């Protein structure tokens, strides 16, 4: 089963390496990984599609969360979310075929972004099913080149996966008392 996991991470050198290293080490299979900036400076968002059983998704989430540079992890697999990936497709298309190809493109809500006498470049942003169906329909014309981004996802409605720095609960977490750490203080501040 495929799981879509969103991780908000510190925008620092080496973070991608930490995440990749974790997946390699624990034997998690990455189907796709998309990384980009967010509404907040200093925070990047990774959308990771992982293939594996239910227990694997749980471990992926928890192990990711354990990385210090990972701020928040959410499993979007069963969430009400908008999920998209983008593809650029260079498809063989003689001028005589343009009409039928353009029909397809319209049906699948894709766009032509480049044209030459014997080919078209098409851009499509779609959820997995629509993307797959589109490619099936284009294939007979001859796909010369294909590039797909990783999947990205965002919750529908007012719920967000964003982190706000001044979230009181988040601040509190760092200052809670502990068996070993004096309340609200660094454990080792000597003065």
């Amino acid at each position: 089963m495929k799981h879509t996991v969103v991780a908000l991470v510190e925008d620092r050198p080496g973070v991608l390496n930490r995440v990749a290293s974790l997946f390699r080490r624990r034997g998690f299979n990455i189907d796709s990984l998309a990384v980009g900036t967010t509404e907040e400076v200093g925070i990047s968002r990774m959308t990771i599609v992982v293939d594996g059983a239910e227990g694997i998704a749980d471990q992926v989430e928890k192990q990711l969360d354990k990385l210090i540079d990972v701020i928040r992890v959410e499993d979007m697999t069963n969430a009400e979310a908008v999920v998209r990936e983008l593809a650029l497709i260079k498809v063989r298309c003689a001028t005589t075929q343009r009409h039928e190809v353009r029909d397809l493109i319209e049906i699948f809500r894709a766009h032509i972004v480049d044209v030459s006498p014997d080919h078209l470049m098409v851009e499509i942003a779609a959820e997995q099913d629509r993307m797959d169906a589109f490619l099936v329909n284009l294939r007979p014309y001859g796909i010369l080149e294909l590039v797909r981004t990783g999947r990205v996802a965002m919750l529908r409605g007012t719920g967000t996966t964003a982190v706000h720095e001044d979230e009181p609960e988040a601040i509190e977490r760092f200052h809670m008392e502990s068996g070993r750490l004096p309340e609200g203080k660094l454990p080792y501040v000597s003065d």
Partner: protein
Amino acid sequence: MKMSGADIVLECLKKVGIDTVFGYPGGVVLPLYDRFPAHPEVRHILVRHEQGGGHAADGYARASGRLGCALATSGPGATNLVTAITTAMMDSVPTLFVTGNVSRNLLGKDGFQEADITGITTPIVKHNYLVMRAQDLAYTFAEAAFIAQSGRPGPVHIDIPKDVFQEEAEFEWPTEVKVRGYAANPRIDPDMIARAADIIDAAERPLIIAGHGVILSNASDELRAFAEKTGTPVLNTLLGLGSIRGDHALAYGMLGMHGSYEANHAASNADVIIGIGNRMDDRALGRFADFNPTAKIVHIDIDAAEHGKNITTHAPVLGDAKRVLQVLTPAVKQNTHVEWVRWIDDLRAEHAYSMQIPSGPEISVQYVVNRISQINDEDLVIVTGVGQHQMWAAQHMKFTHPHQLITSGGLGTMGFEVPAAMGAQVACPDATVWSICGDGGFQMTFQELATMVDEHLPVKMAIMNNGYLGMVRQWQELFYKDNYVSVAMSQPDFMKIAEAYGILGIRVTEKEAVDDAIRAANSHNGPVLLDFQVEAEGNVWPMVPAGASLRETVEAPREQQGVNR
């Protein structure tokens, strides 16, 4: 105040409470070493190999509960730390590893003694840093020390290019550390406490498996109170030994591959298992699929990723063991389980022979470690290597307090015993520290004898010399049809090694001489190397073969029970 990066680093070490650094100099850390004399509060111990420095920092931390620190130069110095870092990681030991690297303009250029050490350590540390500006040093050290010691403790590594040591910056110690991606002390979920309490209250045959987490969170008192209130027998993982007194009425020793017969069968027959600060590891639990599949599992751990990692958990309680027990104990009913405890007691009595100390004329490891334990006071600190002697120490020594047993459980690092004992002695200068050494492991790291001499560290090192890599030989005997390959080792003359380093050496060839040798070592004010010439082919029993379930615990064949072969 403006100062050099090197001075900032040393100020930071003081701020985070590090009084001792186990280090080895080299080119890129010269600017730092240059400043050590100006900071006499930080004791630098010159080790003989960076791995030794790393294990010493680890032993220091385990013995004291404080942050251990090792320092190395770039390239080979840094890569030599890797085994020690991984050892600390697997056993959750709060440690800080500092390395130098080449100057910033040379990073990534494959210059002399450059290694991508943060790249190398990423999968084996709790967190790491490459500090590119002197002005970032103070915050980095504050955060690193916080991360290393809080939550589930572990090693943190800081890599510093040479010219960052030389760069001047304002030294400002941060007033708070804020790591938004890290919950050091997660909120304890009252619903989960309630669920755990319901399961525990309904139990007829409950059992506690107490691990290293109990020791790391100073939860021994809470563990005892919880066990006594609920009348629950307590087993320990290897690293959990000492979390409850071994002679407590509810303590039943170690479970697992070389756990006692009664412990393994108790674990297989309990109806509720309460794991506290343990990782539900294969060496403790045997084959996961067959680990008591009908028991309800309550698992108290501060690392959420340990919940359900290896076995299905019915009540995963997230939190520090001490704090969880402080909340859980009042929430459970007072109880006793007389029948169940008697069942385990009977099993223990019936199978006492399976862990008997051999009575034959030869010296056995079981006999020696037991005598070391009996002759010394309870505050003895025990450090072991890895293999048969480690398991026999776990079986036949008495453990009365946390931080008493220092052993590489997770990674199983041979050669840990000498440098870790050195670190433990530094942390506890007044304690009697005995290092139970394998003849194989000792030869991996004994260069640190020189460090012990320099620093006047009176560690007692007892080599269990059977001329074999004993545990490997045991496996070849049992699982590879006696096909002994590369396990018989020729030995140097250990007495001459002692002599070469100028320390006391005692060779023991007769069983009658064991006690005197131990007493002589104890009364000698300096490092002692003891060569106990033990039986060659003793086997550790009971044993759960690799990949078997705890129910399949095998005891010694009759002819091996209680006698030398």
